[in-house]
């Protein structure tokens, strides 16, 4: 191998110290060992991971449920503290004996820690952290695929086998391995802290996000405002990042971000008052549970104003998580990626995690508040009696389950991606104009109109007719979109070519 000499001073190869060394070594090892295997069986492994995850959740649920039965059977229970240990190992052992379960000495010691709420919280947190990390990883890959398809190319195809599904993992390994640069003139301390200020709030928003009626980490009575607050607080990290980089473009990006986020929060929060008024609560779980009656009972179709509110909210939420066409803070063509110009490696990845998680959170708000949360279009009142595991499973598939919630959220994430790769970016003055002079008046009109509707028309036949019309309209639009998509999928390349040929001059 020829040794090339370069005219500039060569920097020494990057050496990892401390825990990073171990992590990198581990990552390299996993990569070299697992990639050949993974690339052989991509599909089954993906499927297996999903099934395995589900089974894991079920196992937790069963275990904790079992311990709860024991605790509930304890008639002379002690005071219930936050630590939650009401049972001693001896009591558990006695229960197991009484119910003629094989009470080996070990089982009761294994079960005992399960009653600690702290442990449950840790397990729940682990799940949330996992979900939080998986969503961006998947969404980034998906974004690249969608972008590819929109531009008539394939997107990532290699890593992992089937359509490059492991591309994001590879990117992740790359990013962790990158050098952690801090510019010389930057405010090093703020520069280092800023990504966390963006990352932590969007993680915290997941704590109160209900994936299902019982699938919520903390059922807080003010969950809705908490989530909005967390999405709003994220901006602090972005501003600090832009400032601390000591780079003109970064500061511009940060300024734009501050303007945009603070102004768009107003129409967004105003329209969110509308489902709050309909439901009479700020509890996300209660709002979700109120929409059990199938497609036509979803809040978006309640009356014309909620419908307008839903659309307004969705547009405002695009601006709030700085997606196109409102992605001015990071517009790569004019601001060289804006606030994260100077970031590299892991910290840069944190910003991306925060952004994609925020995309999920705002979509989840749209789904929970307007589009029936975790319910399918079929009314939940038709559900089976849950007397066997098959029926429980069928209920989940047909009527309501976290799966549906995530599915709906990803539809909205898909629309965000679609918009990003098809619409041009608008100017900052247009952004602010559309907020103050378009969105906000619409939001106010919708709010007042909804209030009047609630007082005068709610529960009348007319209101029902309007609800059905709106529901059918949306159903028709959805169906039309799906059929066009199916047609396009079937005749993918021909269609592009056909249209192109037909529209060309002289054809």
């Amino acid at each position, binding site marked *: 191998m020829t040794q090339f000499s370069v005219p500039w001073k060569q920097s020494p190869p990057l050496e990892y*110290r*401390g*825990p*990073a060394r171990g992590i990198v070594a581990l990552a390299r090892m996993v990569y070299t060992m697992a990639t050949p295997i993974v690339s052989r069986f991509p599909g089954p492994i993906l499927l297996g991971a999903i099934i395995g995850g589900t089974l894991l959740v079920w196992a937790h649920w069963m275990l904790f449920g079992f311990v709860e039965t024991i605790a509930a059977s304890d008639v002379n229970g002690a*005071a*219930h*503290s*936050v*630590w939650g240990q009401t049972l001693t190992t001896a009591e558990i052992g006695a229960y197991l004996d009484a119910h003629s379960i094989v009470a080996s000495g070990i089982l009761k010691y294994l079960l005992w820690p399960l009653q600690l709420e*702290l442990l449950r*919280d840790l397990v*729940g*947190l682990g799940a*949330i*952290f996992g979900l939080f990390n998986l969503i961006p990883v998947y969404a980034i890959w998906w974004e690249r695929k969608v972008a590819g398809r929109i531009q008539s190319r394939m997107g990532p195809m290699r890593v992992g086998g089937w359509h490059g599904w492991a591309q994001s993992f590879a990117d992740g390994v790359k990013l962790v391995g990158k050098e952690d640069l801090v510019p010389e*003139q930057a*405010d090093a*301390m*703020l520069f*280092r*802290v800023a990504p*966390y*200020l963006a*990352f*932590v709030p969007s*993680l*915290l928003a997941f*704590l109160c996000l209900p994936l299902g009626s019982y699938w*919520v*980490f*903390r*059922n*807080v*009575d*003010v969950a809705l*405002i*908490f989530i*909005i*607050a*967390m999405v*709003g*607080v994220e*901006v*602090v990290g972005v*501003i*600090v990042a832009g*400032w*601390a980089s*000591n780079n003109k473009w970064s*500061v511009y990006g*940060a*300024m734009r971000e*501050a303007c945009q*986020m*603070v102004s768009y*929060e107003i129409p967004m929060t105003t329209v969110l008052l509308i489902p709050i008024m309909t439901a009479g*609560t*700020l*509890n996300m779980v209660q709002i979700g549970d109120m929409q059990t009656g199938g497609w036509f009972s979803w809040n978006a179709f309640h009356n014309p104003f909620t419908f307008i509110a839903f659309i307004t909210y969705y547009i405002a939420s695009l601006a709030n998580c700085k997606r196109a066409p409102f992605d001015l803070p990071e517009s790569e063509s004019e601001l060289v990626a804006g606030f994260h110009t100077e970031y590299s490696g892991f910290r840069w990845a944190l910003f991306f995690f925060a952004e994609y998680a925020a995309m999920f959170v705002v979509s989840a708000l749209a789904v929970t508040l307007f589009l029936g949360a975790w319910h399918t279009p079929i009314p939940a009142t038709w559900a089976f009696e849950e007397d066997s595991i098959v029926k429980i499973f069928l209920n989940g598939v047909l009527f309501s389950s976290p799966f549906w919630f995530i599915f709906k959220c990803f539809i909205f994430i898909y629309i965000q991606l679609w918009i990003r790769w098809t619409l041009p970016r608008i100017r900052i003055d247009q952004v602010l104009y559309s907020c103050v002079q378009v969105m906000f008046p619409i939001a106010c009109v919708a709010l007042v109109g909804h209030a009047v509707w609630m007082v005068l028309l709610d529960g009348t036949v007319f209101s029902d007719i309007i609800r059905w019309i709106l529901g059918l309209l949306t159903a028709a639009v959805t169906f039309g979109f799906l059929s066009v998509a199916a047609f396009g999928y079937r005749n993918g390349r021909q269609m592009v070519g056909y249209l192109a040929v037909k529209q060309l001059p002289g054809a």
Partner: protein
Amino acid sequence: MTLRLKKILLLMTPLAIAMFIAAAPVHAADTDLSLSDQGIQTSADGGLLEALMFYACAGVILASGLAICLSKNIVRMAVYLFGTLAAVALMYFLLLANFIGVIQLIVYAGGTLILLIFGVMLTSKSPWAKFEVKRSELIAAGVVCALFAGMLLFVVVNAEWPLETDAVVVGSSMTQFGTGLLTNYLVPFEAISVLLLVVMIGAAYMARQE
């Protein structure tokens, strides 16, 4: 081989903060929903965990407050203020005032603080808006504030507050807030909304470029 303690600590923050909320004594999921509808929550028997969380919150508040006092960089001061505000919000959660906690987060941390940072960014010409304070002045202010703190602490600790720790604690129910704002507090509510309108016009006028 040096242990990057700071990095580890930073990595721990999300988990740690998540833990605070996770361990907050308001177990809305566990309590009877009909009770929490009426905004009634039994007083939280926090014990050790509540104490730990309180001390953690208080530690963050006081540490970031001290950092604001000692910092010479105005941007950093604003970021430390974010720490104070967020920890105060957590303290409201500990005090069963969930609504105030989230309002603190959304209005204070998400609005007012951003406004302040925005102001800092627009008004400091050099990137590091540092300013020096004379040491003598610092010491004098410190002595005055220490005396003041001593007196206030004496008063606050020794005063006979009307305490009823065993009573049923009323949580922050939305219904209560709503009826409160539209009945007893209707006049201040209306007054403050007109105030906001006037202030908005004043601020827009003052900040407008000619």
